[in-house]
């Protein structure tokens, strides 16, 4: 088994980094579009269906919680928690894309596809 070292390894490393950053960026944009722009087919308890954006739905919940909360602090905790959750989800996407290195498995294909091919070949051979 051999591995590339020194300057010859740099382009591959840069390519892997670009791929990860590209994926994280694409997923970030997708999540932003889902939260900010997408319309959800919402279903109320009486069965009424309406298309609404996520912020408009969350805003209605926040108003109810502010009005009905047994303590005012509950609304503050809710609002801060929602902000941390939304921001944290974006952060998680970036962190997830950066964990670990690809080097060890860089040339490995899909084990499942190979396994299904193997099973299919064995079945064909038995026939």
């Amino acid at each position: 088994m051999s591995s590339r070292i020194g300057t010859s390894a740099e382009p591959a490393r840069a390519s892997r980094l670009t791929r990860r950053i590209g994926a994280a960026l694409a997923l970030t944009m997708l999540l932003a579009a889902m939260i900010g722009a997408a319309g959800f087919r919402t279903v109320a308890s009486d069965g009424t269906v309406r298309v609404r954006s996520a912020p408009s739905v969350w805003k209605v919940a926040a108003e109810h919680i502010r009005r009905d909360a047994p303590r005012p602090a509950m609304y503050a905790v809710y609002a801060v928690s929602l902000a941390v959750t939304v921001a944290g989800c974006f952060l998680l996407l970036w962190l997830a894309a950066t964990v670990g290195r690809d080097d060890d498995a860089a040339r490995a294909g899909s084990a499942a596809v190979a396994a299904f091919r193997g099973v299919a070949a064995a079945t064909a051979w038995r026939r």
Partner: protein
Amino acid sequence: MSAAAPSGLRRFLVALLIVYVAKQLVVAFVSPPFTGHDEVAHFAVIRIVATEHRIPMLWTDTLPADLYQYRAYSIEWRNRDNSPLYTAVHPPLYYILMAPVYAAASRLSPEGIQYVLRCASIPCGVALIVLAFLLTTTLFPRDAFLGVTVPTAVAFQPQISYEAAMVNNDALATALYTGILLLMVLTIRDGATIRRAALLGVAAGVALLAKGTTVIALVLIPLALLAGQRGRRWRSAAIQTAVAYAAAMAIIGPWWWFMTRAYGDPMALTAIAATQTDLTRDDTTFLQLLFSGRFLVDRWTETWGEFGWRLIHISGALLALLGVVTAASIAALVAVAMAERRAVASYGWRVPALALLAAACALGYLSTVQFGVRFVLTQARYFFPMAAAAALLLMLGLRAWIPGRWHSIGQAVVVFAAIAVNVAIYTAYVIPYWYFR
């Protein structure tokens, strides 16, 4: 975590836990009071333990009349004043742990106390994620994909995390059971000893004090101890199993003795059947339910939705998509195990450990089927203790589909999918159901 752990994994776990706690607070506050599974009934048990310093009895204690307005979220609460407190038969650990929290918040209204108790369940979910992470890194210490995706899948599984934001003993039981699974995997890796057997027994006894659904641990303990023997040492495994059972019985024994005296059997199944006559059945068999597609679909639906005591139904298309991904993961796991036996054999001690986790999943489902033979209201929650084991096996199967050099992107896609499922469920179904009129 070993020195060879993937770079950035610890940082990811810390961020995941922070986001999880924030998400759980949102779930706890966005769900109207007492709308969780059996929340009114669990709340009533905590109140009795906290204020009267006693364990409630099914025959004499009733559902709390002052909370009758929340009857839609409990079982068979037809009569305001004398409907049996059906959660009285649950083991006492969760209620004893929550009693001081109740006492500290007792100046609030029942609804206010309930929100505080919901928040007090969140640490159980945090423990579950940490244990799922340790289970994964014990088995695959250098695998970044599994290290990222398994704790994420557990943290964002909508129903499992929902239980950890409600007044309910499920999250505590799931966390304790996952701890037992971790101990079993460590026993298989490091070898079974009398001390580890005793520790397993103690852990099983404590988990049984949280909820009866963890009883499967008693079936798995002998298997783990046998797999942890160096060579075929049946006698040694038998002695260690006896030690483990003795330790477990020392803890759960007094409760089971009390239950048998009070209700006729350790789990009070006969008493439950006597008080929930409309919810018992005798028209099916174990095999009929095991091979029933309807039963499987119902449990799958409950695994992802049915919030607010089965009131909120999520889209069939979303459930089907999640089902396809799960089926593809299971198929890949089985295909790889069959086609690459030599490679799988090189996993060494991990093979029996993974087999044990698979057995935990299978037994979890089978026990839910068995409960369903007698009770109509069998629920997916009864197999939630296997959540971490199932997540690990499913992510192992999913990883097999992804070419090695795409694993890092694959793990980010799994995190995105987990977030997206939660956004969709809460935005399209849960919040509109509660707040749009």
